[in-house]
């Protein structure tokens, strides 16, 4: 007698496979074709904000804080009744700081998550790679990027940057102070890509207007991991070394700069905080930065004249008076950028409430409502300071700070006015079709 209870015959196997394939087919159909499964959107759905987050890739150090701030802001908005009486839901997708993935994420927001808006992108190449898709899918796209690309008019009517000043404006407002207080013969070190090119293009113009001159421009490829070979190119007669770098190599860059100068005479150093954003100033080998200056949009270290709005913002997003996480003092925030996530969400709320936004069918009204905004007063919702908003170029303009490094902390020594950073608009998105 031959009895093999556990052994399947070929026929049984085929049957099982068919069943498995059938089950998989049903599951796939449900996943891939919501229309067939009768899934419909309810009318009482929350306002969905799709956050395009740099969770991985070269923007990850910023992404970590952008996420925390966005989550804290949404929590606060919901505690206060949401938007138009509806709760806000944050849908987060990692874009890998990659423009291709960024565009895919925009598509996912528009067609799968059905978000009402997309929001929160920092790196300019991701913004630019994603914006055509946002425009074609008619998804309002609020970025927190700092680049000049929005204001330049090169994107489309669906892209806004209402919560953070662009680089061109920042540079224009600071150049007079640099020329007056640090020197007029400048050498620039900047990343050899879009963000760096904004600095290259607009700082050289701004400093020339102050009677200054850029002696040498030293672009650094974004793939660079060692920077020693760039420093000998700094001309001897340089009075001010202007540096700005982003990405994982920033700490190495600043340390190698210190090693290069050593104890010798060095030019005055002016840096963008981007070179040390999310990096502790008390890090060994950064002592040489004592007495140098940095641009800050929002002072990382609480200043003696700290506003109550700054206090409140720090408390809500979990940042201490030194700009570090309250739960880990080594976890330094991206303080000069992340406020933009906070402010932008409140601007989305304001625009939605202005137009009585009720769902994706009101997206065009939302665009027009955002364009109709003219400015934001310094307040809890806008802790970085008052801003002027230009609806034609979809860009805001705010104050900037120049801080000096003293005892491994940054002390604000100058604050610009909004007017210092205004420039003549070169575009008008409102003329574009919706």
């Amino acid at each position: 007698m031959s009895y093999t209870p556990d052994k399947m015959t070929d026929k049984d196997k085929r049957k099982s496979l068919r069943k498995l394939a059938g089950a998989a087919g049903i599951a796939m159909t449900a996943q891939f074709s919501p229309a067939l499964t009768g899934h419909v959107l309810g009318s009482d759905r929350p306002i969905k904000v799709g956050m395009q987050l740099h969770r991985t890739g070269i923007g990850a150090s910023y992404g970590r804080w952008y996420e925390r701030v966005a989550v804290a802001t949404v929590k606060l908005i919901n505690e206060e009744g949401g938007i138009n009486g509806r709760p806000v839901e944050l849908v987060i997708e990692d874009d890998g700081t990659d423009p291709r993935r960024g565009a895919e994420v925009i598509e996912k927001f528009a067609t799968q998550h059905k978000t009402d808006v997309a929001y929160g992108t920092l790196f300019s190449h991701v913004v630019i790679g994603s914006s055509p898709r946002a425009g074609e899918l008619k998804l309002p796209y609020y970025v927190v990027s700092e680049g000049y690309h929005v204001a330049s008019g090169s994107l489309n009517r669906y892209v806004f940057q209402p919560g953070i000043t662009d680089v061109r404006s920042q540079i224009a407002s600071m150049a007079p102070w640099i020329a007056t207080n640090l020197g007029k013969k400048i050498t620039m070190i900047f990343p050899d890509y879009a963000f760096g090119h904004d600095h290259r293009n607009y700082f050289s113009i701004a400093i020339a207007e102050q009677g200054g001159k850029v002696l040498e421009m030293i672009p650094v490829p974004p793939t660079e991991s060692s920077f020693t070979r760039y420093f000998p190119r700094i001309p001897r007669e340089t009075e001010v070394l202007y540096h700005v770098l982003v990405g994982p190599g920033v700490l190495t860059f600043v340390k190698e700069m210190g090693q290069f100068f050593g104890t010798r005479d060095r030019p005055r150093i002016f840096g963008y905080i981007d070179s040390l954003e999310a990096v502790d100033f008390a890090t060994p080998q950064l002592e040489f930065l004592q007495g140098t200056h940095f641009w800050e949009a929002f002072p990382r270290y609480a200043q003696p004249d700290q506003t109550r709005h700054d206090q409140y913002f720090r408390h809500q997003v979990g940042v201490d008076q030194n700009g570090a996480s309250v739960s880990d003092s080594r976890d330094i925030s991206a303080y000069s950028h992340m406020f933009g996530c906070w402010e932008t969400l409140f601007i989305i709320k304001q625009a939605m409430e202005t137009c009585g936004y009720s769902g994706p069918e009101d997206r065009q009204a939302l665009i027009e409502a955002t364009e109709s905004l003219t400015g934001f007063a310094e307040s809890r919702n806008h802790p970085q300071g008052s801003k002027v908003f230009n609806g034609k170029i979809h860009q805001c303009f705010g104050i900037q700070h120049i801080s000096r490094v003293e005892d491994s902390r940054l002390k604000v020594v100058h604050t610009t006015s909004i007017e210092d950073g205004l420039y003549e608009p070169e575009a008008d998105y409102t003329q574009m079709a919706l």
Partner: protein
Amino acid sequence: MENSRKSSLVLHIGVLALLFLLSFILSDYHQLTITRIMVLAIFALGYNILFGYVGLLSLGHAMFFACGLYAAGLPVYYLGWEVPSAFLFAIVISAFSATLIGAIALRTQGVAFMIVTLMFSQVAYLATLYFSDITGGDEGLVLPEHARSFAILGMQVDLTSPQTRYYITLGLLSASVLIVYRWVNGGPGREWVAVRENELRTRMLGYNTFLIKLKAMVISGTLSGGAGATYGLLFAYIGSTFASIQYSIDVLLFTLLGGAGTVLGPILGSFIMFYMIDFFSGYTTAYLLATGVVLILLIVYFPLGVLGTLRKKWRLWLP
């Protein structure tokens, strides 16, 4: 033998027919996603000719993808070319670049070939950054409004329509699959495999192996460039990031995962990779880790890629 060939042909046509039928039931998101996957699958098909059939491991195929991307996008952006002429121009430029680079790189073998292709690719990538005034560098360029539609044979084609993009991509993928299928089942395919299995013996039999490899390189580069051109024109964006090494590695992974040396393998690999990342990212922030673990498991259990291993185990008739 004849039956195997018929089954094989039916399978390939069946896969393409399935992709066509899917367009009627897919949700908007998956339609958009599969459009992108199909473009990348064409890229992988091209890569597979060189890697899977000729046995040459290139670490620089992103340069061909980017070559097509820029050759199509720049004339549209600066000269106002129409989409079809820009696409054809990109095909010609990609073929020319592949010939030029192949003529130099194919003088090396093995690891040296990998290094040379990697170096060429890095040069191409850095060139796109260096000439950023023209290419837009890392920031890239958004293609103008006029490039979002074109007329052909009296029909107006709207590239902002997801359905249109899907069918254009499916058409290009189908053409690529059928051409590659025909080649790998014909004389060129046998020559490629002969070189892969034993180049010295092939040469001793009187074949000019350099020419065989060069032809494969040109076909491979042209298909990759065609994919790049399609990507740029369909999605209206060109940028340096597409020339970076990540895209050379991605296409290698697609091919390895699906099964190098099978026509459908790279297509399957593209789908698996894309959806795996998409799926895991919906559940965990450590989605790249999860993807990595699955990739390791797949390589352990499917060392020749999914279709390569299936073919070996069950002696399937996959070409």
